[in-house]
């Protein structure tokens, strides 16, 4: 600003100075010339008078300081010159002023010498004797005059620069003061230059726009953070240099790090080669997947690189906990293997017996035994298939009709149907407690109680006890089945609810059963949102306590 003002002032000054110099020089030059001419003529007249009266003696008395005076004879020869040696001067008969004077009585001429940058004026006058008296004077030319003016002019210019500098500073300050004082936070409140109003308005508008956009951006960021912070999956965003841009709480827990890792290299939170290589692969192929065991759980990492027109700008790492899924897969595999095995065993037995019968290899008196055997095994198959169907029903989580039922009543029915089995082995059955009213699926709850009581009898010692207690509180209904049987060893207690899991690995047919009973119990209980607690000591019996919420 200051520079600009300074420049302008200086420019104007220089132009004015230059123009005035030109004008002044032109005018002055003309004026001086006129005066000089006048003087010259007067001097000539005087000199002519002197020469007419006193002749050459007048001229020789003039000396050298005066203007140059030349006396020329009528034929052009030089008679006298006060400044030059007449012997060396040539004939002047061809000079302009001489010819003019001879002809008209007076003559004048101007000769210009470029080398000396000066003009010489000549004035000539015809004397009465026919000779001519000439007077001449040098006059500096315009250029010479200009040259002479340069020094003062330079001084004026320097002065102009100094003055322009100070003035510029002051003006700039004065102009800038109101501008400096503008409060850009509130541009519209300002009473500044009128010319600035459109700018201030614009600034005000843009400020509003920026604030609005910033808010929107923050809002979006917040939404994004909210979304990713509530994700169960771990999410990490990396930039093109593999530095962490964003990480959600799930991923922080997975990599055991804090928010401080943002901006650091991803390697600093996880340096497993497999994952590093997958990120590398995703960069090349766009996508990569790897399964890694971490903190005793299995994780699947999906890495995707983010492509834009400018190339790869980063990658997204998504981590899923697939431990449950892997376990479920394993269980399903084991289940199918078990089912096939369990189905095959009785069928083999049936086929064997049938073959023997077909080939008449069985004695007549043994035939009923073999047929009975086939019947038993076939019934076993039916029971097993029924169990499997029931389990898959529970797996499908079909909606079943819920009724108001009484656990006490169900247990009474169950014990009634199991009475024969118990009596054979002299096992005493005992039922006590209150009603145990709750909402539930009758068929499933019957299954639960039946399986528990059947197990309590099956795995009891001869002459043992089975006592069932029904509990009912305000919020819960429950059943406790206690026996004095063989118990479950500690290492098996966690697994007895698995499908086809048997404490006795020989899959003995002695106790019967399919290995699915407790599994059905577990599913049925969880269908009713209940809990199972199993306490058992090997050789001292088992206690199973099941609690259902009432609704």
């Amino acid at each position: 600003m200051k520079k600009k003002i300074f420049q302008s002032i200086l420019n104007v000054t220089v132009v004015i100075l230059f123009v005035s110099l030109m004008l002044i020089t032109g005018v002055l030059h003309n004026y001086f010339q006129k005066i000089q001419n006048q003087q010259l003529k007067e001097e000539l007249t005087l000199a002519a008078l002197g020469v007419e009266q006193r002749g050459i003696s007048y001229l020789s008395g003039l000396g050298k300081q005066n203007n140059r005076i030349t006396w020329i004879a009528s034929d052009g020869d030089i008679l006298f010159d006060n400044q030059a040696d007449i012997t060396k001067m040539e004939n002047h008969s061809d000079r302009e002023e001489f010819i003019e004077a001879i002809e008209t009585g007076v003559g004048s001429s101007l000769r210009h010498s470029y080398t000396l940058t000066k003009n010489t004026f000549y004035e000539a006058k015809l004397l009465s004797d026919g000779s001519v008296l000439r007077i001449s004077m040098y006059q500096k030319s315009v250029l010479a005059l200009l040259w002479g003016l340069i020094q003062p002019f330079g001084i004026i210019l320097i002065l102009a620069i100094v003055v322009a500098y100070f003035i510029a500073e002051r003006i700039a300050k004065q102009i800038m003061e109101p501008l400096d004082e503008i409060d850009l936070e509130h541009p519209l409140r300002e009473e500044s230059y009128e010319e600035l109003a459109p700018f201030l308005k614009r600034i005000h508008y843009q400020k509003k726009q920026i604030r609005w956009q910033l808010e929107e951006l923050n809002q979006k960021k917040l939404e994004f953070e909210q979304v990713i912070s509530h994700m169960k999956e771990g999410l990490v965003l990396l930039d093109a240099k593999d530095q962490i841009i964003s990480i959600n709480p799930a991923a922080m827990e997975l990599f055991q790090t804090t928010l401080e890792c943002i901006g650091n290299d991803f390697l600093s939170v996880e340096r497993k080669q497999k994952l590093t290589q997958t990120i590398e692969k995703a960069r090349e192929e766009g996508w990569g997947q790897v399964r890694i065991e971490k903190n005793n759980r299995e994780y699947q990492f999906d890495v995707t690189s983010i492509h834009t027109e400018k190339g790869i700008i980063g990658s997204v790492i998504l981590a899923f906990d697939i431990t449950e899924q892997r376990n479920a897969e394993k269980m399903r595999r084991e289940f199918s293997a078990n089912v096939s095995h369990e189905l095959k065993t009785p069928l083999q037995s049936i086929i064997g017996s049938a073959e023997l019968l077909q080939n008449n290899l069985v004695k007549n008196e043994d035939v009923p035994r073999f047929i009975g055997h086939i019947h038993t095994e076939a019934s076993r198959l039916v029971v097993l298939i029924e169990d499997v169907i029931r389990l898959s029903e529970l797996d499908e989580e079909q909606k079943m009709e819920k009724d108001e039922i009484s656990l006490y009543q169900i247990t009474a029915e169950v014990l009634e149907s199991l009475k024969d089995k118990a009596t054979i082995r002299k096992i005493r059955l005992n039922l006590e407690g209150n009603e145990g009213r709750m909402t539930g699926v009758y068929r499933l709850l019957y299954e639960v109680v039946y399986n528990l009581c059947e197990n309590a009898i099956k795995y009891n010692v001869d002459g043992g006890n089975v006592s069932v207690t029904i509990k009912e509180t305000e919020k819960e209904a429950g059943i406790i089945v206690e026996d004095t049987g063989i118990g479950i060893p500690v290492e098996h207690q966690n697994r007895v609810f698995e499908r086809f899991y048997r404490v006795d690995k020989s899959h003995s047919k002695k106790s019967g059963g399919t290995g699915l009973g407790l599994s059905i119990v577990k599913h049925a209980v969880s269908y009713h949102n209940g809990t199972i607690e199993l306490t058992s000591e090997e050789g001292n019996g088992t206690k199973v306590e099941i609690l259902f919420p009432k609704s």
Partner: protein
Amino acid sequence: MRSRFDEQLMLLNKEMIEMGALCEDAIELVAKALETNNAEIYKKVRPISLEIDQKEKDIEARCMKLLLQQQPVARDLRQISAALKMITDMERIGDQAEDIAEIIGYLNGENRNGSVPLQEMAKATIKMVTESIDAYVNKDVALAEAILKEDDIIDEYFMESKRRLIKMVAENPENGEYALDLLMVAKYFERIGDHATNIAEWVIFSVTGVHEEA
């Protein structure tokens, strides 16, 4: 200028972590092979060891370039000089893992080492190496100091292995060669523990400027 230097330091840091991860992989492979008596493990460990060697050369060159071109001082200088020392230790860890893998090959899948606590030793060593690299990554002096103490555990395991092997040879002299192989394995683990300790010491040095003499 400074930002370029910082970028180079970050690259150095990244390469150090990668080298550390390679060391971890190598020892983990060896420990697993020891458990399953996988005599083929040498073929898997060898490339990792070679990669570790290459990394050592790369990092060394990078450090030299940094020292020459940037003439770092104070903490930066400490970080670079510590890195130079640490890569030597890491390279040794890689070599020793390779050596163990070679010995496992000689054992021909025999498994008579139940009496020697090699598994525990391997686990303790892996933990130390992992922690020493963690300490480097997070500039965690407290963790590094904890590692210095853990070395005693490994030393104790080594002494225990030695005692049991002496007993084993005394009872069955024909087991002599086998026992010596196992002793070598134990010794290599013990050495790896020492290298991890060294790394921890250099981590402490690079942060605090004080190098503890073990």
